[in-house]
């Protein structure tokens, strides 16, 4: 029973907060660049507008284009259950398995990449191909980061990880700080941000994520944007709750939940500022230079393991 409540709370929270975080980062970037930027809630307006528009399909496209947005958001939303943002539930049937979490996200990406290929546009194909290569190259880093966390905390269940870090007064282990840098790089990559990708451009040869969803309009685009936002929230949540889990509720009390939600909002605000600043301070890298970045993430995570072994 408590599980179903958890599902509802977590999903609703994720759905609500994701566009906001998206807008937050946009705002931070704009401010950093000396612009006023769009309103914080702009993303909500955008989604609402898209839902009202009609769907336009390419004559070349097949059912893949039609099902991809739904599958995409379904899998991302399912993945959101694995990262408790406000409340740590009791483990149920392997919910929270970090590997499953990662692969649910990959599944979403898989269909998005297929959809990119479906219409037969040159941009979509290029985007898919780049997306899949980037995701392949970052994968060892991701897994090793996760493995390092699992290695430090001796569990591979995300809620349990949070519970463990929550139980300890300050940084459970200094090594977690090392990991967090890697985790940050993963976050940047997976959410298609500078220097890996540029979320702002639409018709440049450098783009990756945007190229794949180029053919979408209307409600379908809204679903795609939404799932992208959710994914970003999840990864941010993962980083935040491993490093600074304070405030996470462990019991179902309305006050605790509210506090937790507030705490999470504040923490994610800080992170959004960091991301925005980071994005403003770096330029986009060449595609073939990216492995250097990933190697950094990999090396740091590996270092964590080595340090942990020596301790």
């Amino acid at each position, binding site marked *: 029973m408590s599980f179903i409540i958890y599902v509802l709370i977590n999903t609703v929270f994720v759905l609500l907060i994701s566009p906001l975080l998206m807008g937050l980062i946009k705002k931070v970037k704009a401010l950093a660049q000396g612009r006023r930027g769009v309103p914080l809630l702009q993303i909500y307006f955008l989604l609402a507008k898209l839902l009202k528009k009609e769907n336009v399909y390419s004559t070349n496209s097949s059912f893949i284009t039609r099902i991809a947005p739904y599958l995409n958001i379904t899998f991302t939303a399912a993945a959101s259950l694995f990262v408790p943002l406000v409340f740590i539930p009791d483990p149920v049937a392997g919910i929270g398995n970090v590997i499953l979490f990662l692969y649910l996200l990959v599944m979403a990406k898989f269909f998005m990449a297929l959809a990119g290929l479906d219409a037969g546009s040159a941009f979509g194909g290029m985007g898919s191909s780049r997306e899949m290569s980037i995701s392949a190259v970052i994968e060892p880093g991701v897994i090793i980061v996760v493995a390092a966390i699992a290695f430090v905390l001796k569990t*591979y269940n995300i809620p349990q990880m949070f519970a463990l870090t929550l139980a300890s007064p300050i940084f459970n282990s200094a090594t977690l700080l090392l990991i967090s840098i890697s985790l940050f790089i993963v976050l940047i990559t997976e959410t298609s941000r500078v220097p890996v990708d540029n979320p702002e451009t639409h018709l440049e040869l450098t783009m990756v994520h945007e190229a794949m969803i180029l053919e979408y309009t209307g409600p379908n685009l809204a679903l795609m944007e939404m799932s992208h936002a959710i994914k970003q929230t999840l990864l941010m949540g993962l980083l935040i709750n491993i490093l600074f889990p304070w405030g996470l509720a462990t019991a179902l009390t309305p006050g605790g939940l509210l506090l937790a939600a507030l705490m999470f909002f504040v923490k994610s605000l800080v992170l959004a500022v960091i991301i925005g600043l980071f994005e403003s301070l770096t330029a986009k890298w060449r595609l073939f230079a990216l492995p250097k970045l990933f190697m950094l993430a990999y090396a740091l995570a590996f270092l964590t393991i080595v340090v942990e072994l020596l301790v």
Partner: protein
Amino acid sequence: MALLVPSLIAYALACLLPLVFLRKDNKAIRQVSYGLILIASAFLTILALKIFISNQPISAVLLQITPGLGFSVFLDRLAALFIFIIAIVSVSFAIYSFNYAEHTGSHIRKNLLAAFSGLFILSMVLFVASGNIFSQLLFWELMSLTSFFLVMFDYEKQETQKSGLFYFVMTQMSTLFLMFAFILIYNITGSFDLQPLSGASPAMQGVIFVSLFIGFGIKAGIMPFHKWLPYAHSASPSNVSALMSGVMIKVAIYGLVRYLVFVLEPELWWGVVILVFGVVSALLGVIYALKEHDIKRLLAYHSIENIGIILIGIGLYVIFRAYGLPELAFLSLAAALFHTLNHALFKSLLFMTAGSVVMVMSTRNIEKMGGLIKKMPYTATLFLIGAVAISALPPLNGFVSELMIFQAFFQSFSLGSPSLIILLFIGLSLFALTSALAAACFVKAFGIIFLATPRSEEAANAREVAPGMIIGPAILAALCFLFGIGSYQIFTYLGYHLPIPDMLVISLILIGFLAAFLLAMRLVSNRQKRFSDTWACGLPALMPAWNTPLPVFPTPY
């Protein structure tokens, strides 16, 4: 027993019947032959399931030639699992072949194809069922021989000749090492029976292990003994490729596991060797696959990759066993065996659907295809299911077995030796890379073959294939779902309590979310739709050649 012998006889009949009427061009004879294979395989599936569920080994002597020399049958859970793999793929194979085999060359060749297929399956079943070394060796060779003839099916093609020669030499090399090992074992125990080799010195055991590993490894397609595999699998008819890639290389895995678990006393360094070879095979296999433009060779390279993954599981098993961690060892072994089953299912599925495509297109070059999803929707869907499964994406079966391996890896902190842990983590990261590259590769493969616009005349004129060629793979696709979603329940039912997520719950949640989102979108969104051409950068029409993804697949590091 009651099911086994009639099945074997049915296979033998399926082989003999077309041979007797070799010169007759009679479709009915071939249909009967494939029908016999179908029935026998169905029986064997039941038998395997019975043994698997009851966990009561069957042991019997089929034919005693002289004392100490004969054909005996020994079926325990391990053997039953592999019998199940062979049988279930054969069921699908038979259904697929009803239609497919009619498109392959002259009538004598069609008859020969049916005959050799029967013999091939028979020899694989008998190898797995063999209760002693002698019959194992015998049927191993028979299997190699029949598969060689199947590879040589299009013997007039230059390419096939090369493949055939390569294949034959490699199988003989594998026999060489196996014979060496078997004879050493025989000379230690003094009998052909499969029994623990407790008396032998560690050095001797090491020699036996190395030669067994090479012998089985060649057949399984482990790097660097893999060279034959892409050649052979692409040269043979597609239904046979499905058998070879789906089943035959698994038979080698069976041999390896059988000897590691029941006969030899593994040491730590064996596990490290297996693990290293596994990681290398997995990684290089998938990298080769990425470069490939021949669809069947692409799939063949993925077989190498998956064999690598299976070996990683076996290697972990040996390592954990050497460290006295039975639970982790069991998890790794279960992962390896489960992945063996899963790979058999989705690889056969992929080979069959790819075979349909190749048959329609008369080319194996994927750059000539494109847009087939609209002409062959069922085939495309089946291929997609296979692609999702092989890319290890939830909730299908391929994911579950890879997840188990990941979990085994993650728990390697319980090992004592730091250097070993470092090694395992390097292995883990490369394994992750493999898995991601596989997904990338199948996005590419599925995208180029089925999506976008046709890039050749044949692709534009393609037609959906006959029902048999849909139903056969569809069985496998259904099983991919079953073994993915029901994995936790199945393991629990069999009495193995493994710490894996309950995919049934996950799937229910997924369905729930999907339904919710569909409903929500129905309520809030604009449901109008419009069709329009893809934006072609302002040019009058889209060039088909554009939608080939750039070959931007940087080699990692």
